[in-house]
């Protein structure tokens, strides 16, 4: 494990002409008791910096697995994957953790806030991991940006679903990541609240110039992205998207 405490090692920066995400012949398989399951079967994908990509497709098509590979949460079984200039396949577990906290923000369907921590502490966490001294100031600003300046000291259990997802959104964007990954972010919310959360998400993305990959079943939601690709049976329709 590398030293990353309060002196983060800079990750390789991508050149302006380089794609933020570049996947070639990306495959991903898992071993199960019934044999090897090929989830991704040669995905080619390029996403430019600042672009918003909607990823749609039926359940089991491999959308979430692709998202996990992009976040460095799983390792590809084959092919190459560069995200924000980093070759994810070549990095160890803790380098990937460092990569995530510096370059990637993730919004989950089930929020995944830490129940024993306040909203402010939840949001400050990625910056604390990075050893940032201004973690709490920035977390507060981030929470204010999603309209939760009055909920800083509340625990997740004291917040509504929409508020929890807004905290998660603040947490995902507090480090101003190059890449924002969202996995069905409105799946656990009613339509009105979901709409409000998505407005916030797209607003933040635009303000920060963050690249967005949004996984959703909702075609209308996907349509808010600049580009939509469809995944079926482990392959992206239309080849290089």
């Amino acid at each position, binding site marked *: *494990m*590398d*030293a*990353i*405490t*309060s002196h983060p090692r800079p990750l390789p920066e991508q050149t302006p002409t380089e794609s933020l995400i570049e996947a070639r012949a990306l495959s991903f398989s898992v071993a199960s008791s019934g044999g090897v399951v090929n989830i991704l079967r040669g995905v080619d994908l390029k996403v430019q910096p600042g672009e918003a990509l909607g990823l749609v497709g039926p359940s089991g098509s491999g959308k*979430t697995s692709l*998202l*996990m590979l992009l*976040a460095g*949460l*799983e390792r590809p079984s084959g092919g190459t994957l560069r995200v924000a200039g980093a070759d994810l396949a070549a990095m160890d*577990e*803790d380098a990937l*953790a*460092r*990569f*995530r*906290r*510096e370059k990637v923000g*993730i919004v*989950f369907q*089930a929020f*995944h*806030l*830490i*129940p*024993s*921590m306040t909203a402010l*502490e939840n949001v400050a*966490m*990625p910056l*604390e*991991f*990075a*050893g940032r001294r201004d973690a709490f100031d920035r977390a507060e600003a981030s929470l204010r940006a999603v309209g939760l300046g009055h909920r800083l000291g509340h625990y997740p259990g004291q917040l509504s679903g929409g508020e929890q997802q807004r905290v998660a959104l603040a*947490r995902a964007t507090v480090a101003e990541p190059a890449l924002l990954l969202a*996995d069905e972010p409105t799946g656990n919310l009613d339509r009105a609240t979901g709409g409000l959360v998505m407005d916030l998400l797209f607003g933040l993305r635009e303000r920060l110039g963050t690249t967005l990959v949004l996984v959703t079943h909702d075609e209308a939601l996907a349509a808010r992205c600049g580009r939509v690709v469809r995944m079926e049976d482990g392959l992206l329709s239309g080849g290089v998207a």
Partner: protein
Amino acid sequence: MSARAGAGFGGWPLAFRLARRELRGGVRSLRIVLVCLALGVAAIAAVGTLRTAIDAGLRADGARLLGGDVELRAGSQPVPDAVRGFINARAARTSDITILRSLLVAPSGERLLVEVKAVDAAYPLLGAVVLDPAVPLRDGEVAVEPLIAERLGLKLGDELRLGEAHPRLVALLRAEPDKAATPAFFGPRVLATRATLDATGLIQPGSLLQHSLRVQLPPGGDAAAFVAALRQAFPDEGLRLRTASTAEPGFSRFMDSTASFLVLAGLTALLVGGIGVATGVRAWLEARARTIATMRCLGAPSGLVLAMYLVQLLALSAVGIIAGLVAGYGLTWLAAQFLAGSLPVPPRLAPYPGPLALAALYGLLTALAFALWPLGRAARIPGAALFRDAIAPEGARPGWGVLAAQLAAAAALIGLVVATAGDPRFAAGFCAAALATLGLFRLGAAGLMLVAGRVSHRLRGAWRLGLANLHRPGAPTALVMVSLGIGLTTLTAIAQIEGNLRRQVEADLPKRAPNFFFVDIQQDQLARFDALVATLPGVEEVRRVPNLRARITALKGVPVAQVRAAPGSEWALAGDRGLTYSATPPEGARIVTGAWWAPDYRGAPLVSLDASLAEGWNVGIGDVVTLNILGRDLEFRIANTRAVNWRGMGMNFALVASPGVLEAAPHSNIATVRGDPAQDATVLRSVTDAFPNVTGVRVRDALETVAALLSRVATALTATASLTLASGVLVLGGAVAAGQRRRVRDAVVLKVLGATRGQISAAWAVEFGLVGATSGLLAAVAGCAASWAVMRFMLGSAWVPLWGVMAATLLGCLALALGFGRIGTALALRARPAGELRGE
């Protein structure tokens, strides 16, 4: 934690901060960890503190206990004049003590075996004797312990009989400052002057008595230097000297070995507690798996996750350990009250840092040795787990660094056990046995699950369901078996050991064991003695042998002080030994080497020696043993060695001399009398009335004294081992509680499918009954094996299986398992299907 992880996880301050936040969520699920640690630490802290407190009491009161700065034990012979002169020239004061046991006869004719302590005017050199009333003790008067007055119904002013004298009872002996140095083992104490003792006629050649001389040195005198000078001046006298700092070596040794056993019993509690720690921590971390995965997604390295939970675990362990130390210290007070009558000094109770720190270290190492595995696994939970159903990766192993740390903690724990034990070999054996027992229960569980998996599909109804529960993935079969089994194994082992020892002192009495030993029968009383006992009712057999007192001064010409005797054989080189002579081998003796002398042998002195002593002293046929008899050194050549059955309760002598040498020396005789126990009182009264100087010792009374001591040790061990069972029950409760969620779900689904409460209960009765029965069987077997090993290798004694204990173990295990299973089942059956299904 590995150095690698430590360097890269983001710093301890962050780990502490995150841990503090996490702890806000409460520690309910870790209560079992706290209690398990606290129980084990309490047991070890209590034993260690009590031992230290007793040692401190002995040290502080050493001189008072000894009754002087130095004590010289001279055995049955008075202190030689030359030695006395040397001492008198250097001492400030001296005091002569003589102790012997005899029968005290009440005016009613009732009699009791007592130890008479005859003292001079200088007694006691230190401290004070408390007589009630506070009268001076004159010649012709005695003071007795209240117990004697109670047993014999005495009142002050009564004329008693002691040997041939008729002293008057003038006071009750309330306190004796030096009682610990001269414990009245064979009977309660009678205090008299030396002139009173002389008048009894009990001091005869060959009498079993103990002369000692207490010495008080001038102010600033160095006891050790005094002892060294005395030994140097009289190298051949074989002087037995004690100083205040070694006042109670025998008791200290006894304390050491008892405390070692108790510490090991406490460690067993800690071991079971450790299993509770492991399962408690695992359940706790499983409940936090989503939090961990979220943190991993947010960029927390595995090292940070490990550090954060390690901090929490250590904080909670500290709470458990401190609670254990406090409870342990409290237990020490209770134990001191319980043991008050058995200890030579009041223990000096204080929170001694040494034993408390040791107990805390045991607790900490146990927590680490058992918790690092689940912690290491949790640290490897990937962020991707958030996207999957199963959060805890089945079969994941901790990193190598964590594994190394865990092994180091386990090794340190074993090292500490062995290093701090009185008997390191036994402690190492204990560790090996503990690991083997753990392995046995794991194997037993694996076997049970395998069989259940093989046969469950061939069965129907409750049996099929119960067996399926045993082997399904995540079934707590192994945990329940281990938690239940270890505690019961310990208790079984202790019960088997105690039962076997008790059998040996009580039930295993040889069928032909005598009812009485009569000692100090003088040569001129032999004919009358034989005639008398021949007329007594119920007497079936009388045996007599001559009895002399001898001290071994040299072996093969080497003074005994320079002989390096093997452990277990040194005792016979110190002090007086009984010696007899005989033309024929003792009845039942088995000659191991050499041959017995001819019945009419009258040549140079020969001796027959106990074979195990000969081996321990490294002597054999033809070697010379020098014996000091009545102040004269005589050389005996070893003619043969014999196997002596010391438990035979007959007259056993380590040394038997050939005839023709000792007959002329003044000596007494010992007789054994066997017959109808109903006539014991008549026989005792008749013999000791006719021969006031003769003392009768009832064999059964002596054995009861030993049994009472054994019983106290066993009680202390059982109490400590009960903590193991308590830990086990806690862990078992935790295991059942951990599976409760599944049990409720199963109950609901089964109810939905039409199962009756009876059918569901029966299935779980099968599951828990089989687990309990298998654990009980294994606990009985493992307990027997452990007790056999202790009896065979530590006590060098025979062992027989006690079927009652084994049956109790099996039934106890079954009852505990079924009891807990029943509670879990009853709670699960209460769940309402509708609510549970909506929740899903």
